[in-house]
């Protein structure tokens, strides 16, 4: 398991239009960058989507990736996120099918992890856990002891705590 210290996070703002995910993911493939997760969604602006990438590799490679990304017509801005100065989160849905005698214990560790039970039926439980990737990894590991069935993770998303300084540049969207 790769710890977060060895993963670099890159924040990418892109024009929100069809094909942009393909263009960006094609860049990783073509230039053999080792991307471990991609999370994409809308941003605070109508026509702008935010992608959060995590990559394995050194700072130098990350700088190259940022430069290549910024050459793409649809990319508005790309930058390496300083994880110490950002809020970094991932969300996971974890389905567990516990033995009846384990049910109570699950409830208690769900609480310890500040996770939530979002589905409960006779034979299974779905837990929603969020936090940094380490915490999610640990939660999943623990769940293995109680009949872990399925996991869906969103990939990492991050937001810098600092004030943005390049507002005008980011307004320069579309073509």
């Amino acid at each position, binding site marked *: 398991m790769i710890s977060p210290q060895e993963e670099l996070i890159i924040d990418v703002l892109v024009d929100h239009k069809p094909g942009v995910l393909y263009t960006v993911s094609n860049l990783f493939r073509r230039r053999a960058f080792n991307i471990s997760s991609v999370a994409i969604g809308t941003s605070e602006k109508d026509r702008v989507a935010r992608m959060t990438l995590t990559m394995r590799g050194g700072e130098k490679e990350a700088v190259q990736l940022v430069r290549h990304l*910024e050459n793409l017509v649809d990319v508005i801005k790309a930058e390496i996120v300083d994880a110490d100065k950002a809020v970094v989160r991932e969300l996971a849905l974890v389905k567990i099918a516990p033995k009846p005698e384990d049910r109570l214990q699950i409830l208690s560790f769900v609480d310890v992890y500040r996770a939530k039970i979002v589905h409960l039926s006779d034979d299974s439980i779905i837990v929603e856990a969020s936090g940094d990737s380490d915490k999610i990894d640990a939660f999943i590991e623990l769940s293995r002891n109680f009949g872990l069935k399925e996991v869906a993770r969103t990939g990492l998303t991050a937001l810098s705590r600092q004030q943005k300084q390049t507002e005008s540049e980011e307004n320069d969207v*579309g073509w």
Partner: protein
Amino acid sequence: MEMSGASALVEALRREKTETVFGLPGGAIMPVYDVFYKMRDLPSELRIRHVLVRHEQTAAHMADGYARASGRVGVCMSTSGPGATNLVTGIATAFMDSSPMIAITGQVARPFIGKDAFQEIDIIGVVTSVTKYAFQARKAAEIPQIVNAAFRIASTRRPGPVLIDIPRDVQQEMDILEFTGRPIPRRHGPLPDPDPGTVARMADALAKAETPLIIAGGGVKIAEASRELVALAELLTCPVATSLMGKGCIPEDHPLSIGVMGMHGSSETNQVVSSADVLLIVGSRLSDRTTGNIDKFCPNSQVLHVDTDKAEIEKNATPTISLVSDAKKALKAIHADLVRLHARRPELNWFHRTKNEADLDDLKKDGPYLSAVQTIRLLRKLLPRETIVTTEVGQNQMWSLIHFQAYGPRQFITSGGLGTMGFGFPAALGAKVACPNVPVLDIAGDGSFAMTENAMATSIQEQIPVTVVILNNRMLGMVAQWHRMFYGRRYSSVSLGRSPCFPKLADAYGAEGVAVRDYKELSEAVKSALKSEIMTVIDVPVSPEEDAAPMLAPGAGLQEVVAA
């Protein structure tokens, strides 16, 4: 103005000052060709010339050759499916060498997209890796905007190909269209002026250098910065080596030009480059063919790298100082700083310029063959100074690199990055369309010429006279040379057997064809080709054993040139 998407496309092209489109029609692009047909009634200054090819690959190479010869954006066009995929080699060639091109493809009508309809191909998906951008017009109203943006993207900063895919029903759709281009987003617009602090540090390093040297790449040609390059070299009295793409950006008979460096550069050139203490690299991405083994590339030199594309900085070499800038602005600024520092170096005492003067008075044949090297040197002597020369790929290209001196930045056109056999001849036709008053000659090999020889039909029909000199060794010569040098002479599938008789083939197309037997016949054939109104193919028999020498073995450093 109410018009169809097809009319909008043609009108938008006209607004971009497109004079010529190279292409071949087919089902999904017919509405556009119908607009071309109707242009017959317009006065000539409002018409766009269409050059009909026989294979779409040659249309792309022609547009590329047109762009490289003129600096203007070249335009090619095809139908959907196989027409579009045939363009891909030409698009990739332009991409690797940063040549501004627009490729326009027809597409199946919108309701059929994604249904695997007849001649449907996802061309956007296919070309994403080899274009700066690819557009698909989803309605006619988008076309003026798309064309405007495509030309800006293709020609701004580091140029490259852009594809525009237009479904057939979008070409036919009528709408009220407006032709107002949106401004280019700043992040893709022209680069700001070079950072003065970085320029000063570079100037300082050059002023303190004992043996400075400039490596000039294709970026110098693109930025039209030849004059600035020569001025800086003269101020520093420092030698200039070029990459293959940079060949000609300093006239190669200039006393400070030391020719092309790299895998097939002369050993003298590579030695001089290796012994420089400060290297100023301008507009070169430092490909493996230019640097040799990158780990052994100038280990004792201070590297200053200027490039318009920030992604090229530190991609291959690690510079001491780097500057993201247009080459022309950077060279000008560094020059100005050096003048301010009074850093003029009058001495020229640390390198010898390679002598590249052929003794051409007494050329004799070696058995049935002419020497490829002497043939190329003789061509240089026979051709007017302003001649545009294109090459194919392989030995013909490497012989030309060393032995054909280029005197101007847009006078040596070759597929450097992709190494596309069959490029030179159609590129020559495109160059001739761009520069009709300049002689254009393709130095070819028999293997390469065979790949796009059908463009002879275009040359004749469209009256685009160029000369093709085939260095005919009846071999895929460069591969055969590697077999000789690195594979124990195990010649695997490189003999082209009898090949067709190229002069007869030329004749069949209605072109001139000459088989020459000695240097005197060669001279006469070239002189008469230069005067001819139709294209000429000159077939020169060369030995299958003649190597393109010298060369670096794969993995070798620049200092380790082996004589073949």
